[in-house]
């Protein structure tokens, strides 16, 4: 690729000096410069505004400007062109001033020849080029630094957002704990005070019955705490999934019995079971958690109804579990946040609950590499579908 012819701007009002520099320039082995010549700074400024030059050679004492001022008018317009000052012997102080301000070099009139001119130009061009490179790399470094600062700022913002989420979670927990812990605490307090206040009046059977209630409520509150801890865990990778072979039908029957007992048999759980595999490979605790939460929810949120449906079928390596109720349903707005901890349907205020159940189900389903979907309409009931792999790959903790 051929380079365009380089251009030089020469500011020189003395015809003799201009002639000399032009002649010397011709005799160098530098590429042939296209020479532009002016005698006045005003003309030079005009030229510099019109085009870029590759080199500027300038006298400092011109008809319309003198000394360092001349240089200061030209230099800001020179852009990438190195500026070499042509000076008389007497102007040393001024000349050194121009070097401090950015001139690449100077030549003393009458004391230079084509060789010195060539060397000076070569060095000046080279130095200017290097300066440009340094400036550009500084620009790059600055941009890198800016990007780094932006990245760091974003990280901080995210950390703050996470922190705020935790604070929200904490506040919600305090509010929910107030509700959900007060009822079992109430049962425990009445039972304990009953034993204390009326001990002489009651028989052993009644004492045992009250003690049993206290134990049961302690278990209930402990389970509630476990739920809160599970819901508060954000790093699922650290939760150990312990798989074993489970006889599916037995487990399902047992869970149904447990749920019906704990909900005082208000609803019939109708089971539709269509699974070929006798055993499945899963984490029993997580698996139970999913079923118990979904079935209890279905019953809790369909007060006055008689039954809920539990459908379990097997399809190409997948266990498809659907739980359907005819309850109060969940509005579309509420569905958006329903899988988040402490979120409850706005129509659920008169039904006790923590808002933790579905968030825990979702986590359990994710740990078992499954998926969950929910379909619901206000006062039309809710269907939750969970798909779990029958034989999953090992999930090792990170």
């Amino acid at each position: 690729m051929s380079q365009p012819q380089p251009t030089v701007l020469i500011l020189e009002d003395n015809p003799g000096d201009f002639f000399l520099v032009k002649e010397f320039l011709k005799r160098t082995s530098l590429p042939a410069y296209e020479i532009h010549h002016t005698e006045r700074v005003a003309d030079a400024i005009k030229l510099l505004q019109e085009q870029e030059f590759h080199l500027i050679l300038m006298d400092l004492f011109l008809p319309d400007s003198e000394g360092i001022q001349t240089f200061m008018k030209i230099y800001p317009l020179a852009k990438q062109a190195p500026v070499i000052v042509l000076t008389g012997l007497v102007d040393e102080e001024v000349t050194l001033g121009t070097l401090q301000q950015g001139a690449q070099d100077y030549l003393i009139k009458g004391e230079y020849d084509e060789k010195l001119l060539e060397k000076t130009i070569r060095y000046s061009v080279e130095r200017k080029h290097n300066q440009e490179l340094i400036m550009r790399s500084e620009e790059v470094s600055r941009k890198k630094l800016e990007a780094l600062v932006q990245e760091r700022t974003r990280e901080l913002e995210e950390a703050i957002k996470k922190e705020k989420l935790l604070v929200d979670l904490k506040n919600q927990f305090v509010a929910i704990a107030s509700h959900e812990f007060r009822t079992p605490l109430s049962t425990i307090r009445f039972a304990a005070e009953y034993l204390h206040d009326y001990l002489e009046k009651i028989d052993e059977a009644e004492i045992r019955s009250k003690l049993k209630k206290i134990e049961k409520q302690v278990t209930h509150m402990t389970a509630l705490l476990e739920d809160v801890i599970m819901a508060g865990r954000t790093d699922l990778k650290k939760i150990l999934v312990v798989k074993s072979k489970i006889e599916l039908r037995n487990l399902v029957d047992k869970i149904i019995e447990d749920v019906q007992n704990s909900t005082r048999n208000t609803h019939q759980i109708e089971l539709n079971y269509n699974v070929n595999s006798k055993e499945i490979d899963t984490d029993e605790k997580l698996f139970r958690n999913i079923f118990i939460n979904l079935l209890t929810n279905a019953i809790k949120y369909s007060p006055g109804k008689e039954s809920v449906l539990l459908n379990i079928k097997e399809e190409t390596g997948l266990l498809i579990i659907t739980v359907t109720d005819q309850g109060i349903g969940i509005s579309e707005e509420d569905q958006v946040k329903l899988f988040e901890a402490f979120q409850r349907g706005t129509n659920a205020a008169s039904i006790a609950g923590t808002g933790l159940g579905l968030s825990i189900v979702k986590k359990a389903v994710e740990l078992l590499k499954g998926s969950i979907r929910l379909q619901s309409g206000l006062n039309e009931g809710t269907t939750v579908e969970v798909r779990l792999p029958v034989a999953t790959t090992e999930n090792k903790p990170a």
Partner: protein
Amino acid sequence: MTTRILLIEDTEDLGENIRDVLRMEGFNVVWARNGKIGLDTYHEITPDLIVTDIIMPLMNGLEVVREVRAFEKQTGVSPIPIIILSAKATPEDHAEGLAAGANIYLKKPCSIDNLMNAVRSLIAN
């Protein structure tokens, strides 16, 4: 004549405990396990006092209190004392309970003494 108390509470073990305490203190207790049954029972037995929970399915305690007060106003029968015993524990909850028409608002967990003081202060009037 034994004072008859209508207890409305949906939590099984707690309801049983409150019923046992009230019986031990010499009251006749009828226990309804949700707000809807509670309101029906109120009309059936005309109790001397009501102790009700708030958070219950089908009909909550506040609705029961409002229904009872509305019925009393409509028919001109003299208002009966009502105690709310609830896990809703904020000052706003308290104010809402009294605004609905309850005479005393107790928050869970309350002591037997708290409950009996409330019952006796209302029966004495």
